[in-house]
């Protein structure tokens, strides 16, 4: 009987549990998580802080998930060391647990740059439930907040706090918010929606120092921007990004680049050791290579593939790419692939912009293939484009129709339709 050990009980770990149990209902299965209730939806932290969700409604899987899947869930425990030669995981620096197959799904940790005052009470990150609970405990007594980082997490934090009546200043170092996933036009639309809802957006600057309150120097009282301006606030949310939590494989035989490098079976360079999710550097179908893609759906998918392979069912990971769907401030956006290429002259760009309807669509083609697209306002057929991009389909023949109202599966060449879209 195979013994599986999974470190991490979030999207990836849960995906692996489900896949393993589809193949092997009997094997011993242990999940180690430093979180007490790991089965919550991390992207819903924003809903938790805005009070649109409770701890109960933000559960990604029901509480009986572990029991139903016959998992020994060691929650609130920390995997402190791995001995890859002896195939042992050390728990809480004390006892050891042996494994036949191991999955490292330890996720990412929020990146907090060295900054004076970052240890003050009232400074939070925004990727774990504990941070959200910390914010919740302070929000009632707070009037204003500074969110550092204008990416997805920063914008979601800003929205949640605004909904709680907090005056929010969002600070982005680059010239545009959401600059990794939106082009200039879409970013401007998003910024306008944010400012209309009361967020003050400051771009091209960062926070150099966090100040204390006059009467309570250890509690957040404000920030100093790079240009010297001071903004007073009661809360600071640092939302710059996440870095892979690779501590457990440090100085081991497991190959690490920026994250743990895995093959198409989600296996690391060490046999019987797998990795997935934010800690892993896995296949990207657009660049046809490995890349850090800290995205919830890919963590889950990678976890599933790892689980199947751990249980002996050979499965290849189809990969992911930069892909996000946004709903913040009720602005629906789907953005996939390359949308801000440096060498824009290598691309053919198709654009449709209807400002009066807040509809913006942009498709980037290279060598006849879709390399990226942004759909803002009208999302319905975005998934068809996602498949065309993922399957690297040459769309030269139908290029002129892509942005037409009538475009759809019916408009695809017969052969392509037969191959890729089996319409029942």
């Amino acid at each position, binding site marked *: 009987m195979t013994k599986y050990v999974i470190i991490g009980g979030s999207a990836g770990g849960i995906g692996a549990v489900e896949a393993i149990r589809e193949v092997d209902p009997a094997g011993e299965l242990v999940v180690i998580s430093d979180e007490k209730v790991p089965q919550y939806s991390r992207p819903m932290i924003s809903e938790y802080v805005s009070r649109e969700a409770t701890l109960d409604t933000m559960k990604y899987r029901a509480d009986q998930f572990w029991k139903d899947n016959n998992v020994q869930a060691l929650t609130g425990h920390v995997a402190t060391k791995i001995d890859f030669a002896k195939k042992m995981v050390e728990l809480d620096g004390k006892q050891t647990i042996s494994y036949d197959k191991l999955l490292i799904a330890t996720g990412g940790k929020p990146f907090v740059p060295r900054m004076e005052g970052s240890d003050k009470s009232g400074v939070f990150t925004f990727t774990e439930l504990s941070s959200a609970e910390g914010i919740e405990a302070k929000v009632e007594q707070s009037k204003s907040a500074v969110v550092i980082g204008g990416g997805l997490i920063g914008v979601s934090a800003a929205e949640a706090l605004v909904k709680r009546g907090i005056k929010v200043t969002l600070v982005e170092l680059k010239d545009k918010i959401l600059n990794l996933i939106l082009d200039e036009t879409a970013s401007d639309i998003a910024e306008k929606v944010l400012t209309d809802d009361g967020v003050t957006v400051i771009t091209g600057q960062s926070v150099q120092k966090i100040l204390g309150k006059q009467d309570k120097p250890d509690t957040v009282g404000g920030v100093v921007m790079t240009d010297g301006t001071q903004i007073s606030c009661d809360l600071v949310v640092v939302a710059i990004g996440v870095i892979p939590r690779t501590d457990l494989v440090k100085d081991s035989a497991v190959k690490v680049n920026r994250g743990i490098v895995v093959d198409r079976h989600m296996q690391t360079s060490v046999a019987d050791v797998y990795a997935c999710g934010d800690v892993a550097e896995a296949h990207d179908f657009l660049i046809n290579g490995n890349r850090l893609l800290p995205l919830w759906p890919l963590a889950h998918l990678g976890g599933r593939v790892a689980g199947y392979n751990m249980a002996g069912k050979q499965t290849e990971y189809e990969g992911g790419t930069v892909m996000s769907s946004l709903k913040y401030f009720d602005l629906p956006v789907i953005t996939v692939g390359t949308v801000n290429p440096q060498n824009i002259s290598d691309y053919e760009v198709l654009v449709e912009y209807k400002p009066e309807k807040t509809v913006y669509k942009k498709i980037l083609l290279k060598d006849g293939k879709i390399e990226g697209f942004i759909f803002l306002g009208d999302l*319905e057929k975005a998934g068809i484009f996602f498949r065309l991009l993922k399957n690297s389909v040459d769309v030269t023949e139908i290029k002129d129709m892509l942005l037409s109202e009538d475009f759809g599966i019916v408009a695809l060449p017969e052969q392509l339709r037969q191959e890729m879209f089996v*319409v029942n």
Partner: protein
Amino acid sequence: MPTFVEEKTMKRVTVKQEACIGCGLCQVYCTIEHSKTKDPIKAYLQEQPKPVSRVRVETSKPNSISIRCQQCKDTPCVNACLTGAMTLDKETGLVTHDPEKCIGCWTCVMVCPYGAVKPDSTGKIIAKCDLCPDREVPACVENCPNEALVCEEVDE
């Protein structure tokens, strides 16, 4: 350990593409079926939030097809769902959507190869084909004038 797989049948809507005339009645009846009142006039003119069709008729002359959730076996929407709202019912093989758990993040919309999952008219959650759980035969099938839509029991 041997596993026993039960013989299961699952309900599916299929479209005979050569018979689809692109009339759009499937969309109309889908909209009415998913309205509160199930009355065409009220559904289209009065109800708030407006009920939406979970079927889409695509036309590219001379062809047309009626598209809805295909209940994909590899369930990209279920795998991508951020909240656990989209699930695969292992008994029926149906991809089911829990509106209570849905937060309208649109991740399923992004990965649905058929564009068959879409935001509903509130813009807060998604809408997709549920094969009309209250009916023996889905509304689109029953009202297709050219019998282009067929409801079948398929063996898994």
